[in-house]
């Protein structure tokens, strides 16, 4: 029995390589490091070619110390907003082969935020609507709390509260 178990696990690995590749989130390494910020047009052209972009589309992040170097400032397009019917090379990421990844790709994947979603109602207005409604309900609740409604019946009498009536006939 104990001999069979390792065999089963190794068969699992052979059948589904994805488990091995995706189960380990590897550390950032030197190959991921972008180059220097391009200052001359020649450097820009070289950088655009490196990132497989047309030079008109290539625009690096501003050199403000964020350390992104020559990485292109791609438009933020969320995974969910991309066309689901287009035959992507990698349908899970909705990405074609060698297409440059956005610098914040962790945030805009299909299982994360949809930053390109065009909300019917803007998010700030949704906040306003929600809190206005809750606030209005609270105001109504508070006002109505002053005007309590109850059935016109006598209050229930408990002996522990002291005085209570026994409804005996009045002694003459």
């Amino acid at each position, binding site marked *: 029995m104990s001999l069979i178990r390792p065999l089963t696990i190794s068969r699992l690995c052979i059948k589904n390589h994805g488990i091995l590749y995706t189960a380990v989130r590897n550390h950032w390494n030197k190959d991921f490091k972008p180059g220097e910020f391009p200052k001359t047009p020649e450097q820009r052209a070289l950088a655009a070619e490196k990132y497989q972009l047309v030079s008109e589309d290539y625009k690096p992040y501003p050199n403000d*110390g964020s*350390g992104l170097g020559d990485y292109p400032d791609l438009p933020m397009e969320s995974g969910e907003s991309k066309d689901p019917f287009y035959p992507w090379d990698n349908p899970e990421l909705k990405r074609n082969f060698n297409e440059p990844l956005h610098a914040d790709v962790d945030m805009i994947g299909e*299982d994360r*935020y949809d930053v390109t979603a065009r909300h019917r109602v803007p*998010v700030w207005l949704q906040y306003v609507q929600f809190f206005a409604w809750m606030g209005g309900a609270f105001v109504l609740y508070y006002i109505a709390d002053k*005007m309590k409604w109850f*059935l016109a019946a006598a209050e229930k009498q408990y002996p522990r509260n002291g005085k209570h009536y026994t409804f005996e006939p009045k002694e003459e």
Partner: protein
Amino acid sequence: MYFVFLLFFSLLSFSSSIYFMISDYSVMLEYELFTLNSNVVYMSILFDWMSLLFMSFVLFISCMVIFYSDEYMGGDLNMVRFILLVVMFVASMMFLIISPNLISILLGWDGLGLVSYCLVIYYQNVKSYNAGMITALSNRIGDVALLISIAWMMNYGDWNYIFYLDFMKDDFMMSIIGGLVMLAGLTKSAQIPFSSWLPAAMAAPTPVSSLVHSSTLVTAGVYLLIRFSTGLSNNLMMFLLFVSMLTMFMAGLGANYEFDLKKIIALSTLSQLGLMMSILALGDYFLAFFHLLTHALFKALLFMCAGCMIHNLSNTQDIRFMGGLINYMPLTCCYFNVCNMALCGLPFLSGFYSKDLILEVVSMGYLNLFVYFIFYFSTGLTVCYSVRLSYYTMFGDFNFYGVQNISDTGLTMLKGMSGLIFLVVFGGSMLSWIMFPTPYFIVLPFVMKLMVVVVVLFGVYVGYEFSKFMISYSLKAMDYLYSSLFFSSMWNLPVLSTFGVNYYPIYFGGLYYKSFDHGWSEYFGSQNIYNNMSGYSKFFQLIFGNNIKIYLSFLVVWVLCLFLFL
């Protein structure tokens, strides 16, 4: 096999609960795990009529659901995983029900959250993943609140809260503990502002929705608050009443705009949970427990019927594609109708006994008018969306494809459902005869007594008007688009509690990451410490080079020090 075990234990605990109820008997088993000075950690188990009755209901519904899922999930490659997850869920629920101790409740509570996450992500697609995330993270807030309340309870020296509730009601620490436990209950039972996870969790398979998201997981919050209700202060009760009342209202409104079958039933569950919490906040935890039990029965069956319909219509969940199903699936639709009518509070079905009693007790109480209005309006909304749902699924025109095979021949599923139908019809009356030794004394004017009936009839009429669905019909909701969007999207809660709450923190977190983790932390931390250390070690290596000049200069320095300090 699991079916037989669960059925046996369900019947055993039901009979025990009746015996315990009649003889007013309860058993508490305590095992001392360890002692920290005066704090004692016990592993406790409390068998009283309430816990045994709830256990029996949970076990019965789970055994029917496992039997039902034999056919519903038949042919699924991961069936073993599914059944094991359901059994683990039931085990966690048992832990929660029989615990009079906060620490052992945590075992069950965290177990429920974890297993419900695993069940929601069962179908591995992006939507299920997102739904699982929001379920797990919303429940996690409650778990954290419970953990903090465990820390606060160290002040009392013991975690068996049942001993402290009556005595410490006015204590400041108890109010904190009560507030935290209430927060935990609000998250688990999906009250405002944590409501967005319940409709999202409908990404789970239907048997899971039937067991977990209608009868057991969501009622765990209500059960915890039922146990704690004597220890909650008046301010907390007022807040709970406000929140749960609005949840009831919001869910009722939302269900009238939805077109996904499971989401309508989920919002219906949410509305009834709001009702349970409201009546608990008004002080009557007994009625809340009664409604919890009856609701579990008919809601589980409602989900199972919905599952039958979805299964037959090749996994379509949109009610606009359903219609006239009563001609093809008469028994399923019959059960569906009975459950809907029980939900609306039709006289003498199970829902009537609990719901009508709640409304009458509310009418008799000393309440503010707004609360009273919301209660009755929500009841009307319940009827409205139930009629709308029935119209769309069963009585309208047939809207599905021309060639189809819709029938009631899924015998295993039908048998699973048939186990519950008798309880749906008779359970309310039986429970009311057992649980209430003396009935509630309701004295109401005739008009007020009729109010419920009037509201129900009005709801039927409005539900029918809302759901007219013809080619030439213009949807009234389109004329009032902004308000329709607001009400249909659960008052914007799904967007606000995901995107609204997380996006800016993560964005600013990214900026902090750049400036602190990649910037100043490197300067004060790893990189600069490394540079400094390597500088010092270079300096010392110079000294260790056995240079005679350095040796002599150290000798001079040492002599100087001797003269200075001695």
